[in-house]
Structures are given as C-alpha cells and as structure tokens.
C-alpha cells in the first residue's frame, strides 16, 4: 500500500479528525479484508488478507490515538523521525513537582484520583494547543516540542492509574 494512513481511511490529513468517520471507514475496510472473510479461501488470499488486515489495524491505531497521530503527522511533514528537541526548563520544574506529589500521595486512593483528574485536564489543554499548532500554524518543530511534553503527561497519567489499580487490589 503506497497510500499514507490518512488516505487509507479517506480522512483529511490533519491533526483534528472525525473519529466517528475514522471508525466507520475502518470497519468498512475490515469487513472487506479481515481473515475471517477468507477462512475457506486459498492460501495466497489468506496471506494477503492477514497482511492487509494487519496494516489497516496499525494505521487505525496510529490515527485513533492523538499522540501517535501527531507523531505520524510530524513525521510526514518533517520527512524525518529525528527528535532533537529538548524540554524547556519551566516544564522540567513542573515535571519534578508532579513527581514529588505522586510520591507523597502514593497510598491514598482519593488523592490519587484527584491528581489523575488534574493531570487529565493538563493533557486535554495541551492537546488543544497542539491542534492549533499543527492545523493552523503548521509549525512542526514547535509541534514536536509540545508532543514531548504531552507524552510525558500521558505517561504520568498511566502511572497514576496504575498506582490506583495497585492501591485498590491491596
């Protein structure tokens, strides 16, 4: 497939995409090529269906997830996968504060949940800014910088959720 992921699903090549439409296209395509449709077919078609279906799953997962979608979009536009940007000092300080906070509340479920809401808010806020940098300004270097911050916030978020699961199962 020489198409890029946006072309596969017939959605515009930008950060803000219609997730419903993406899902619909995805399902239409899988209904056509999924290995379940080729159970009694020849080996050649089975192989091809496995290959295509895998590719379409990968493309879908990439576009569905905002972080992966942004990374992919930046890669296409910058024509490289290199990531030289560093996090600004102000963010590093913020980062340390969050880390310390997580440490101090690691056993308190209600505090963890509160913190998770806060971080989730940060995540949403940053995604909104990223959208405008990608779709309006088309400044891919800045987009890359922002993406690194968002990625940190996302990882922090899943660590908090993991911690909540852990406290709960005790």
């Amino acid at each position: 497939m020489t198409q890029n992921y946006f072309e596969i699903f017939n959605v515009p090549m930008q950060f803000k995409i219609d997730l419903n439409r993406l899902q619909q296209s995805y399902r239409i395509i899988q209904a056509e090529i999924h290995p379940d449709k080729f159970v009694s077919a020849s080996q050649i078609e089975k192989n091809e269906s496995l290959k295509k279906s895998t590719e379409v799953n990968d493309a879908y997962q990439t576009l569905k997830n905002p972080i992966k979608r942004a990374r992919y979009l930046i890669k296409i536009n910058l024509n490289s996968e290199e990531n030289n940007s560093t996090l600004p000092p102000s963010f590093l300080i913020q980062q340390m504060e969050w880390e310390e906070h997580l440490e101090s509340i690691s056993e308190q479920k209600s505090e963890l949940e509160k913190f998770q809401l806060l971080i989730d808010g940060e995540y949403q806020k940053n995604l909104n800014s990223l959208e405008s940098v990608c779709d309006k300004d088309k400044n891919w270097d800045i987009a890359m910088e922002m993406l690194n911050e968002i990625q940190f916030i996302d990882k922090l978020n899943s660590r908090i959720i993991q911690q909540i699961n852990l406290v709960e199962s005790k």
Partner: protein
Amino acid sequence: MALLQISEPGKSTMPHEHRLAVGIDLGTTNSLIASVISGAVSILEQGNKERLLPSVVHYSSSNPLVGSEAKNLQIKDPTNTISSVKRLIGKNLSDIDTKFYSLDLKDDDGVIGIQTDQGIKNPVEVSSEILKKLKETAEKSLGNELYGAVITVPAYFDDAQRQATKDSAKLAGINVLRLINEPTAAAVAYGLDQNKEGNFVIFDLGGGTFDVSILNLSKGIFEVQATHGDANLGGDDYDQVVFEWLCKSNKINVTDSKIKQKLFALSREIKEALTDKDSIKINEIVNEKINIQCELSQHEFEEITKELTKKTISSTLHALRDAELSVSQIQGVVMVGGSTRMLCIQNAVKEFFKQPLLNNLNPDEVVALGAAQQANILAGNTNDNLLLLDVIPLSLGIETMGEIVERIIPRNSTLPVSLGQEFTTYKDGQTAMIVHVVQGERDLVKDCRSLAKFTLKGIPPLIAGVAKILVTFQVDADGLLSVSAKELSTGIQSKIEVKPSYGLSDEKIKQMLEDSFNLADEDKESRALSEAKTEALQLCEMVENAIKKDSNLLNKKELNLLQKNLIELRKLLDSSDRDNIERTTKLLNDNSQSFAAKRMDRSIHKALTGKSVGSLEI
C-alpha cells in the same frame, strides 16, 4: 454443476452445499458442542441425551473412555482418570503446583506428561480425546462429515495455551476455522439474539478461569475494547474456601486423598445448593471418625468468599479503565459461566454496574451457542454480516539486557497485529542469536510467562554491530504468534531460520497424527497426493475467477504468464506426479501473489467509495 460460476473475489471459490460447522466450548469441567441447523442454533446432545460432556478422560484399556463413563471412575481410579486437563494444557511442569493433582505428572521433553496404565499422555492428547468424542457426536447426530469448528478459549489464554489447543484439534482431525475467546462467543450469542448496539461487558466466571471483556457492538461488528482476567480464579476456588471452612468448623485434618476428594465434592454441593437457598444444613457421615454437622448461611458464604469476589470486581474495574469507559456508558452486562449462578457474584456485579444483568441464556451453554453461530458464518453458510475484531489479551515483549522486558505488542491491540524490531550482532562474525519472547505486563523477565526462545541462524558474518536483523512478530486472528526474520544490510532474507522452542514441535505433532491414523506408507503417499491435488485445484479456481473479474489489473505479460501456469497445472491434475503438482502450484502461487494484493486494494477502494457515495455504483 452450474455453467457459470460468479462469486465474490476470494470469498468463496464456488457455491457449496451447507457445510457442517460447529462451535465447541472446550471447558475445564464440561465441554459442549453446538451447531446451526436450518437457521436455529442448538446444543448437540451426547449419546446419553446429556448436553454437557464432562471433560474427563480415563485410560486403563487401549480405548480411552471420555465423558460420564470416565467421570464415574474418578474416585475409584484417580491416577488413570484425567480431569481439568485445560489447567495443564500449554504449560510446563514448573508452571503448576503438582500437589493439587492426584495424577502422576512428569516432565516429558518440555511439556507435561501424565503417567497412566496406557503410557505417558500429554495434555494435547487428552484434549484431543475429548474433541474426538465431540466430533463423533456431531457427525452422528447430523449425519454428515464435519467441515470445521470454531473452538473457544479463555480470553486470558496465552500463546502457548492457544497453540496447544489448536494442536489438539488437529490431532482429533478437526479443521479449526478459528479460535475465539469465550466472552466474545457469548457476546455473539447475545448480540445476534437480541440485535443489540452499544458497549457491553461480558463477565465470565467458569470453573477455573475468570475473564472480563468489554465490547462495542454496532451493525454486526463486535469490536473488543479491552479484556482482563485471572487465569487461576474460578468456581473451584470457591469450593476450596468452603472445604477449608468445613475442615475448620468441624475441626478435621484431612490427609487421605480419597477423603479429600469426597469433602471437595461435598463442598461443591454446598456451594451449588446455596444458589437458591438462604441457608443449608449439612449432616454427613464421611467415615467412622469423621461426622460433619454444621450449617452455612448465604450471608456467611458471602463473607468467607469475599476476597475472591473482590478480585473479580477489581479486574472488571481494570478492564473499564483500559477501555476508557465509565460504568454509566455500559448498556448491558452479560453473565457467562456456571459460577455466575452464585448469588454473591450476581449481587456484587449488579451493585457495581447499577443495572439488571443479562442472563436469560443458559450460562453453561451460551459460549458454545455463540461459537456455533460464528462457525456457521465462517463456513460461508449464511449471508449474515458479522465481524469479530478481537484483541491480544497480554502484552508481548522480548528480553533485553539485565533481564528487562521490552514491550513490543501492547495488550488489547486489535488482531491481527504485527511489529518489527531491529537487532544487531555484538560480536564480529556472529551468525546466530536468540530472541526470547515473553508474555505479560511486568517489567522483569522472571515475572512474565516465557513463551519461546527463537534461534536466528544464518546471519551473514559481519563486523559487530553492522548486521541489521529485522525480526517481525506477527499475531494472527487466532491470537497465535509467528516470528520471521531478515537481514537488512546484505539483503539476505529467507536464509535466517526461526526455531521456536516451546510446546510440541511440528514434527512431534506430525508424528502423533501419523501414529493415530496408523497409516501404511502407500496410504500416506495417496493421502499426500490427494492433499496436493486439492490445493492445486483450489488455487486454479481462485486464479481463474480472479482473472475473469479483474484481468484489467494485469498487463499482458503478467496475464500470459498466469494463463500458461494455469494450463500446465490443470493438465497435471489428471496425473499422479505429486512433485510436479506441488512445484507448479508453488509457481502459480508465487506468480499470482501481487495480483492478489492488487485485487484486495481494489476491494478496499470499492468498499469505501461505494459506501460514501451511496449506491451509485453500476
């Protein structure tokens, strides 16, 4: 035969008669088989009119006994009677606690061996006996040869357990249309039954395993959002708690394995009685020394099993978080598995989701019913548009320096999925390396399940760090892993050999198969010839149909080449020259690969534009 055969590209090579396709729920305690007969799905009864086949195999004479007959010998002859083999399948001896088994277990070349009077049996063989019996049931009651089966496995089964299950089907002579997850099968049964849409939770508590899956249903598409569970939590654990309570409250200390078995059976009866009673009085004389007299109330039962129930709810919460859904976004909760009959489970789940539960289909049968519906669709017996998009339940990773796991395919990725990873050599002239694949969510190798060590051989000798080996991990729609490798810097691709090292090897399976057929050499040859001819014929029909429909995707040279191959292969079909048939089949196969790819791209394009512009297509 019709003069003109026009069929959808690839979907079926020719119109066919109704194919006998079944769904099999290969359970820890009981197994079931179901089929769609004239549009209605039903459980096929065993010879004795029972709907459930106890998953028990007894080996004391050359013909093993399966089902009730075997179960009846459980207490009399425990070492030759194998039950709950599902707990052993796809595992090593070191994975299990042998003291819980009354069987004589040993290591048999990497897999578990069970010593019986009929020699050492491995779990794949034992499972295949159960499957053979079910196959027999189907063919007897439907009077036709079995075309294929959908077999269900717990969502939480890892790669080795899935592979072993598929191997036992092969050994039983069953064509596996697909392995599907038990909760997904249950969702099919409910979804098709009631035309539901939205997010559904499937809560599946069986005898030995617990799974919870969250699915989104929309217009015949079942997309699994997340799955979670515990491969070692089930009704048996509730029996164990009641057993401990019995011993404690009657101050008895059991060492004798037969008495233990008796008390376990009693514990199960108590648990089952409590599904429709508030309280139960127990008055049982076990032997001259042990006389049990006590009472267990529903409330007390709920108390003593509280920790187990809590585990199921915590798993459920986990799955919801993975799916990024909240309780209020759930449209229905489906209860599956005999153990969901326990009131304490029903109450806990109802309370958690704050809604009534869906349990109008028999929880013991719903998995087999769903599997049968899926089998009917996969076999091409119906035009129902249904598609299951399932996920990989556990992350796949590889071992890196310091015994740390590097995750390559995260859990809950939609199947099929693949990922490539580059490796390099660390010594000059190195020609081989080992890739250790593990499955699980923990960071250290020792905390994950070791799946396989793949040996890559035939790497071209280069200076350390120059060779670039791209290893591709592919998980197919059955949830099974395969690994391939190629060397990038020199372009040497196919020479790198990948050898898995778990479970039964292909040769061993082949050996077991041949032993079971007990074929003479000439029979083997005629079997192989007939297989080669079938494959060749299928390929010819596929390519001919494809040319009829999409010849404009080919240039003249490509078309001529394919037609030449076709004529040659068609001619050979009348001969008995197996080598030549196989060689020409491979040639046609290779030459039509890119044609197949182009056709699939075209069908994607058609589907997308067709749907978005409405029915403007001519």
